[in-house]
């Protein structure tokens, strides 16, 4: 009965470590396992909405946008609410889409460490001054240090100092957190995501925990539910003591209904990562036990790459990957776009366009997928399609495939036969990920 929005999670079915839930955020409802997609601009949002009207993906939980992309990506949603001649609210396709799907804005502060998208913070006029100053200091360091190793050491130090300075001063910390949360609220997010640092060490874990605690308190102002968020360097999946500390925090101190994890740039399909696969499996299993103790809490994992196929089997109710994940997508919409990779529904890996041209011809001019976008292709040769048309198709296909995969997991849970997923993975090119699945 309180004002504001509540996140409520109810477990529906369980098969040992796997489960399905029904979650509501205010008026929106999500059935899990569910898939979220990261979008970068308004064009990708349009594509997603096209797909929604074509296929009605029931397990597309919502969208995630990085904070520095949010203005550009959500501008059509942000525009004034359309009204008819009598002043009544007229619903357009954007408001109808957002009525059904949740929106999360990721503060993406890992890019203060990984420089690949750091420049986007500078381009965004609303970036807090502290972040701008830090980026400028890093730039100066870059020009000073010729040796890359020395620069990396200096960067590591600057990164730690930046976060420790924020955590040291209570007032400054509150202003920093509130500024980020407020921006998220203005974009109309359904769940607030705390602006935590990339955890690179135990010290940074303490900072992340403190920011999570303060964000939870400050989210009372926006009257939106707030998640607990842990953003980890991929190598930390080896550090089981640190992972234990995180588990202890979420079971003992965090009362939030949603816990979000992100292991940045973690790709467990690489054969060498044996310990990582084992530890990731342990995290999944522990979170699954956690969900038995707290059935009304959900866990989510962001930017999950190929792990998206296994994470919803145990521990994680919601998963997300980018619309363009691992498909060479960044260059696909450039001035001279190329043909991006296609996610094979059987092999569960991305395949080159040239391979798909052969597959198409050998399968009597059909793509190996039964989703509506793939079935609608009638060209004689895939090369007759423009790169843009191909890229639109394969992106819609990726979301449709993920939607189907989530449904497949839900069916296996309902049939009390979750091993079906391991069997399905055994026939794919990512069968190595089976190592992470619980063996009980």
């Amino acid at each position, binding site marked *: 009965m309180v004002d504001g929005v509540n996140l409520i999670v109810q477990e529906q079915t369980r098969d040992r470590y796997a489960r399905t839930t029904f979650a509501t955020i205010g008026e929106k409802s999500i059935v899990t396992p569910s898939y979220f997609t990261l979008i970068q601009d308004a064009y990708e949002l349009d594509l997603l909405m096209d797909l929604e009207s074509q296929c009605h993906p029931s397990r597309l939980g919502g969208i995630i946008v990085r904070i520095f992309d949010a203005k550009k990506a959500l501008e059509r949603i942000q525009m004034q609410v359309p009204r008819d001649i009598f002043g009544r609210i007229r619903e357009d396709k954007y408001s109808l889409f957002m009525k059904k799907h949740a929106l999360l804005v990721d503060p993406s502060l890992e890019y203060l460490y990984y420089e690949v998208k750091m420049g986007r913070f500078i381009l965004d006029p609303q970036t807090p001054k502290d972040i701008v100053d830090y980026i400028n200091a890093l730039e100066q360091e870059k020009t000073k240090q010729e040796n890359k190793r020395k620069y990396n050491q200096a960067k590591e130090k600057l990164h730690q100092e930046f976060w420790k300075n924020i955590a040291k001063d209570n007032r400054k910390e509150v202003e920093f957190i509130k500024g980020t949360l407020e921006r998220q*609220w203005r974009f109309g997010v359904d769940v607030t995501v705390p602006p935590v640092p990339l955890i690179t060490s135990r010290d940074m874990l303490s900072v992340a925990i403190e920011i999570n605690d303060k964000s939870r*308190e400050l989210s009372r102002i926006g*009257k939106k539910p707030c998640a607990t968020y842990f953003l980890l360097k991929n190598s930390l999946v080896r550090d089981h003591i640190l992972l234990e500390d995180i588990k202890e925090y979420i079971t003992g101190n965090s009362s939030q209904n949603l816990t979000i994890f992100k292991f940045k740039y973690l790709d467990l399909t690489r054969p060498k990562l044996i310990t990582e696969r084992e530890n990731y499996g342990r995290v999944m299993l522990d979170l699954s036990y956690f969900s038995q103790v707290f059935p009304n809490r959900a866990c989510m994992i962001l930017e999950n790459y190929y792990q998206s196929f296994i994470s919803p089997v145990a521990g994680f109710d919601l998963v997300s990957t980018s619309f363009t994940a691992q498909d060479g997508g960044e260059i696909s919409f450039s001035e001279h776009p190329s043909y991006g990779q296609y996610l094979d529904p059987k092999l569960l890996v991305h395949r080159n366009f040239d391979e798909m041209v052969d597959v198409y011809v050998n399968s009597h001019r059909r793509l190996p997928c039964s989703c509506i976008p793939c079935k609608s292709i009638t060209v004689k040769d895939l090369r007759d399609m423009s790169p843009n048309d191909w890229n639109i198709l394969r992106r819609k296909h990726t979301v449709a495939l993920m939607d189907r995969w989530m449904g497949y997991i839900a069916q296996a849970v309902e049939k009390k036969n979750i091993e079906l997923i391991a069997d399905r993975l055994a026939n794919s090119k990512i069968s190595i990920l089976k190592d992470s699945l619980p063996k009980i």
Partner: protein
Amino acid sequence: MQIEVPKKILASDEIKALSPVERDSYIQSVILEILKMNPRGVTIYQISSKIPFSRPTIAKHLDVLVAIGEAYKVQRGNLSVYYKNGKIVHETDVKSTVVDDKIYTFYKLENAEGKFLYIQEKELDEFRSPRVKGGVMINEKDIQGFLQELIDFVKRGNNNWLMA
């Protein structure tokens, strides 16, 4: 008597970093949570002994919560005891209707004083989150009479709004 309070709330210097409007919103939310955690009721003194807000601040926010129907007050001698307003009798006993920018939610509530129909008016705030603007509580036994009065009133005179 000890009362339950949220585990970690912002410290005084952190609250000072908030704007006055944010501060009010934060304090109100904390007080509401305290009422929720203590179904046997709390007094202003009990709250002020546990959290770093002054007694006038707590009293002001409790009055607001009572005014919008989120809480109610029972006078016991000189002592005012505050309670979180009732629990919903059944899950189906909630209905919302949207009229332009306003949301009206109807609840069938039950508290120590009896059963009530509670009509709450909410508005979407700047963050598109519903915020309670006001509310009216009608005792179960008075509903019939209230509705009759309401219909008679809107039909009264030449200005019959039901015909509009």
